[in-house]
């Protein structure tokens, strides 16, 4: 097993508030890790620090793209980190709502293409080739996610669950080796959540992508994750297999409070 992400005692302060405190998180190749914890535990902040939306106050975020050396990405812009192979979705869906479903996914392919606006104007060979690949690849992804029938619809017109799925498809279009999902099942009904299970597992096996997800739906978490990473008040309080976490005193305590 090879490590793909490794945070080294990262911390984040917002004014006087310590939102993250010395968090060490490792993710191995092909692993599905769930990040759980009560509200305000710092899960999304951790996501933001990893993906470059926030810069950690202390500690290091290291990523190890397959076949490449370890890179410390502190202070990198989010787009550079995405280019290196980390992709994410957002807790409050952030689709490009006035663009079509297909275009949303095509935007995801942006960073894997190189053609410039001049080539687009003269329709140069690289432009033609890359556009063709982008289109085919995007349609492929939509097919995988069962969204191909809606390809030409405005993204904002999709039902809620489909919007969540589209966000995942769009993130995958950036061709990541690690996918970060922020509450992918939020607002879905049980059937949709089950379908999401299968999808996440399929992404892992077919595309050989590691997945880190924040999720409140414990059934989903227990079913799909290889490992669970529990946070409370900005700290990591437990890290282990679903079985271990289920029986962990500290975790039960954090979730249920004093009893």
């Amino acid at each position, binding site marked *: 097993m090879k490590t793909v992400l490794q945070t080294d005692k990262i911390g984040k302060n917002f004014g006087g508030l310590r939102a993250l405190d010395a968090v060490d998180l490792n993710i191995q190749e092909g692993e599905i890790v769930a990040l759980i914890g009560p509200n305000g535990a710092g899960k*999304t902040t951790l996501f*933001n620090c990893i993906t470059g*939306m926030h810069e950690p106050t202390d500690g290091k975020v290291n990523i190890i793209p397959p076949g490449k050396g370890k890179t410390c990405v502190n202070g990198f812009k989010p787009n550079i980190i995405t280019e290196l192979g980390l992709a994410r979705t*957002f807790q409050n869906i952030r689709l490009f709502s006035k663009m079509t479903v297909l275009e949303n996914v095509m935007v995801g392919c942006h960073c894997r293409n190189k053609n410039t606006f001049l080539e687009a104007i003269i329709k140069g060979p690289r432009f033609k080739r890359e556009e063709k690949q982008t289109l085919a690849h995007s349609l492929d992804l939509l097919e995988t996610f069962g969204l191909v029938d809606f390809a030409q619809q405005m993204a904002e017109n999709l039902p809620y669950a489909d919007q969540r799925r589209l966000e995942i498809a769009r993130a995958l279009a950036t061709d990541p080796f690690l996918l970060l999902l922020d509450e992918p099942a939020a607002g879905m009904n049980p059937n949709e959540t089950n379908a999401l299970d299968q999808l996440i597992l399929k992404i892992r096996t077919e595309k050989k992508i590691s997945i880190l997800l924040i999720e409140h739906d414990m059934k989903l978490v227990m079913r799909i994750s290889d490992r669970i990473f529990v946070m409370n008040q900005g700290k990591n309080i437990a890290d282990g297999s679903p079985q271990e976490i289920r029986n962990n005193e500290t975790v039960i305590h954090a979730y249920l409070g004093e009893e």
Partner: protein
Amino acid sequence: MTGTYDILSYFLELFSSGLTRGSIYALLALGYTLVYGVIGLINFAHGEVYMVGAFIGLIVAGIMSIMDYNILAILFVTLTFAMIYAAAYGFTIEKVAYKPLRQAPRLAALISAIGMSIFLREYVILAQTPDFVSFPALIPKPAFLLAIKNYLEPTEVLIILSSLTIMVLLLILIKRTKVGKAMRSISQDREMALLLGINVNKTISMTFMLGSVLAAFAAILIAAHIGQINYNIGFIVGIKSFTAAVLGGIGSIRGALLGGLVLGLTESFATGYFSSDYEDVFAFSILILILIFKPSGLIGTVATEKV
């Protein structure tokens, strides 16, 4: 000795004209800041309310001076009419151009505001005149100020004093009265204010009217001081007052006062000691520099977007 005297009196002249400009900017900046605080919108048409106020004043003052009224009576009635009418304009502008857009993206509201501004300018051009017109000198020169007229321009002192008075009144209004409290609570959290039973629509209307009243007050004072107006006066003064509001930190009332005075003084000294050709360039450059390097202004905090 005369040399020192000249230097001193020139300095005083610049200082008092800077404070005069500054208090006018501050009065208008308050309008921008109050509206921004309550609905988070740059009221682009605010400068035009100022301009319309000046024209209403011109008409009232003109009629009364033809009828040979006493100058103090003219000033009083002109101010009253201009302020009432400006309030009515402010109220109507909000109802027509902003209220339907409260849920719309901010860009839509801004475009609508600019549209309203263009409309009002053209309206005054068509209804009155596209040219400069002279405005009667209404500000009296009381005896006690004549004593210092070698050092300070009496009308300027009066403008500064009366502006300060009205600003203090406003501060008291916002601190003490029910409307003021409602305004402050809406600027904190509109949803919550609504739940607490505060009449949001009424408070927003009140805010626009209050800002317009201040603008008209400033307009009459400065028009009577300078002696001429045209349809374009609102545009430049509006942008500069907005600069003052941003300089102080938009949304902050103390910031608006401070920003107005700082801008007025720097402008006055810069044009007095350097060149007056680039007066407006100077103000715009300040605006751009603040927005780029310290968008939160002298007093104020930046809101960051939640991811």
